[in-house]
């Protein structure tokens, strides 16, 4: 029983990271109707920026965090202009391919600049964790869970209770109508990309002390976050969060009870099972094309 609780905690912690990255997916999907296959690389790049600013340059942890996120905002803007914007009037297929190209480009540029050695990033706290009853609470996991919860709450407030949030929602639901009403659609999409890059970056920096900071971390996280969005129901914010948490838990239990080397395979098996038996996910309902 103790082990179960412990695994549950770890699973929710790692699942929170998937949920954050999944949120980035969902926001871009809702704004542009395309899936950004480079979403995971935002996390990877942010983690490397954090290593550079915090470890190499020696900025204070919080300052390095802020500077890294400013860098991510810039990256999100450039990404939008270079990868999405020129293709905005084409079908989804070229855009998918373009984001895949961007993913490869970002991962390998980082590799070329930095080299293949993984880096270690220390956590926010000096102490590793604490025991509460039978469960050991790793501080970094606690931080991940708390920050995720805060971001989700903030985002809810932002979209439901601010004018900018409403404009973004209007853009995601009907771009043509939004632009007829005077909403600058291109700017809204730009904001979406910047925001997605930033929350992807936060996820990457949060998870970095738990994993190693490596070139491959982006691809792994992105695939799982995508699986999370499908499990939750595509394009659904709540679904992405629930899906992310569920996937983290499934994976942690799978690794503990079934097989460690195939740990990364569970996500894909769950994904394929969902795709076959319940493609609309837990919450989602996909509307069929109108004749």
């Amino acid at each position, binding site marked *: 029983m103790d082990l179960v609780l412990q695994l549950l905690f770890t699973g929710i912690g790692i699942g929170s990271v998937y949920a954050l990255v999944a949120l980035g997916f969902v926001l871009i*999907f809702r704004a542009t109707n*395309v*899936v950004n*296959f480079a979403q995971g690389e935002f996390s990877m790049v942010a983690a490397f920026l954090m290593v550079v600013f915090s470890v190499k340059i020696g900025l204070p942890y919080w300052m390095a965090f802020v500077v890294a996120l400013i860098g991510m905002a810039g990256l999100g803007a450039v990404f939008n202009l*270079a*990868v999405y914007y*020129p*293709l905005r009037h*084409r079908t*989804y*297929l*070229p855009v*998918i*391919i*373009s984001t*895949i*190209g*961007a*993913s*490869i*480009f*970002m*991962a*390998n*540029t*980082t*590799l*070329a*600049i930095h*080299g*293949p050695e993984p880096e270690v990033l220390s956590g926010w706290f000096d102490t590793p964790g604490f025991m509460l009853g039978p469960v050991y609470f790793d501080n970094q996991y606690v931080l991940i869970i708390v920050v995720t919860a805060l971001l989700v709450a903030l985002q809810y407030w932002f979209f439901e209770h601010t004018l900018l949030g409403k404009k973004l929602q209007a853009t995601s639901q009907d771009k043509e109508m939004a632009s007829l009403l005077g909403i600058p659609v291109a700017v809204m999409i730009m904001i979406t990309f910047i925001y997605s890059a930033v929350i992807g970056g936060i996820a990457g920096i949060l998870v970095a002390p738990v994993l190693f900071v490596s*070139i491959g971390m982006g*691809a792994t996280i992105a*695939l799982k976050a*995508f*699986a999370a969005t*499908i499990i939750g129901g*595509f394009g659904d914010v709540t679904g992405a969060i629930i899906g992310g948490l569920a996937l983290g838990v499934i994976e942690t239990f799978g690794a503990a009870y079934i097989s460690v*080397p*195939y740990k*990364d*395979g569970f996500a*894909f*098996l769950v*994904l*394929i099972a969902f*795709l*076959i038996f319940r*493609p609309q996910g837990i919450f989602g309902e996909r509307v*069929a*094309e109108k*004749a």
Partner: protein
Amino acid sequence: MSTSETTTAPGDIRPRLRWGVPAYVLLVLAAMAIAIVVPKTGYVLNISLQATTYAIAVLGLTIVLGLCGQINLAQAAFFGLGAYAVGLGQTHYGVNFWVCLLIGTCVAAGFGALLGASTLRLGGHYLAMVTISFQQIVTLVLINWIPVTNGPDGVRAIPRPGFLSDGSIYLAFCIAALGTLGFLVWHLRDTRLGRAMRAVRDNELAAGVAGIDVYRTKVTAFALSAILGGIGGGLFAGGFSYVSPDQFSFAESVVFLTMVLLGGVASPIGAVIGTGLLILIPEWLRFLKSIPGLYLAIYGAAVILIVVFMPDGIWGYLRGLLDRFKRAVLPTRTSAALQLSGGGQGSETVLEVRGLSKHFGGLKAVDEVDLTIRRGGVHALIGPNGSGKTTTLNVLSGLYKATAGSIVLNGQDITGLPPHARTRAGLGRTFQNIRLWRSMTALENVMVGAERPGSPAGNDPAALAERARAALAFVELEDRADEVVSSFSYGHQRAVEIARALAGDPVLLLLDEPGAGLNSSEKVELRDLLKRISARGLTILIIDHDMTLVSEVAQHITVLNFGRRIADGYSADVLKHPDVIAAYLGTGPDAAA
């Protein structure tokens, strides 16, 4: 893929040069001769082998992505399945090379069909992710299932068949394989299957309604793609005698994808150009490989640049240049008149609909509608906006599942059938917002219609083309048969859509607002066309808002309002019915009088 499918019709869509095939054979033979005769270093041999075997796998993407429009990010996995089958089969189990190649290809085909099967309910992004997942699982298994796959060490000392043991001869053999498979893929485009794939790519919904089994078409495309991947991989293993998991990773799948995009996704020539360039260029730029990552970073950037600036690839671009010099070819005319059987002499009722309902959540879009359509003549379904007309049509043609009720067409219950099976049963339809396959010619569009299972043209390509021309002649567009439909005016696109439905010789023709968006002279043409169709004995069910058109062509009218039938009967009677007048013009407190 059987060769009988690749026979082409006389008067084919793309006028082909007579010396084309012999020249192609000579070219392949010359390449083989060069491969054998010209002395070369081991390095050049390896590069050539790699390019040839990769090109075979890239041909698979020409089919699945180029023809069928489905994304496949797991081609390296299929390549790997073929390679490991040839490697492990020979070294671990002592099985003959050819048997191993066959097994590897079959395994790849099986998994390809399985991936294709996931398209039953998914498309686009989902499919991309499913194929990536499959790719990752294959890589994980190759690395971790050490007792069987040797894990990261890979498989060494993979032999070749005795008579191919010389590297140059093996290369010549691979070139021959590439030449043959490339030829087949080239011809696939203009076969029934190839047209079906392109129709699915351009407009899936219309493909289903035109009688194409969309699902089976996609599964076939995936299986064919995987087969080519498997063959390429098997030959690759024989050529290099060593395979390891990292050769078949996701990054390699992206490399395959880049190759097909760079060369041009529409043609096997593009696949070969793209593969050749992307194998040679990195070799010329070998110094880039001294910095890990730089080379793939350039790859990634190249993908974006190609997609943005060269959407049709190198071959697509060259073709565009060459087409300028192409002489205009006068379309062959047909003397045959379009035969319409109208389903023959069956019972008096063509369509019998009982208690048909379609609910979207709480909304009763169609509510217990009865509809009886008699053979011959034109039956109109009218009603104000939102009255459920198009929903009724969509339920009839199978795009929506009926919530309740039954549909009997020509004595056959079609209530539970998918769209393509209803078309097989004799339904033809057009769409309110035109759904043609925009990258195909008018003739190709109509040929797919003529290929409806059970249509009189049968399987003979010549008869199909003949019938399609006759259908185009019927709507007076025969002269433009070989033009791509996206250049047609709105009214002409409508006419092509009607011709497509007519070519299948349906029992009942459903027309969804054919008059919408037409100007007054086009409307007159439409009215005459409908009368000519009707005169040949084909039954029509038409939806339209234009009451002049409806009253001129229809003998029977059914009126819907709020999803319910409010009137039904002979045109003149129905149009005088007070409920109908009220529904259309509104009713004041004393209007009932």
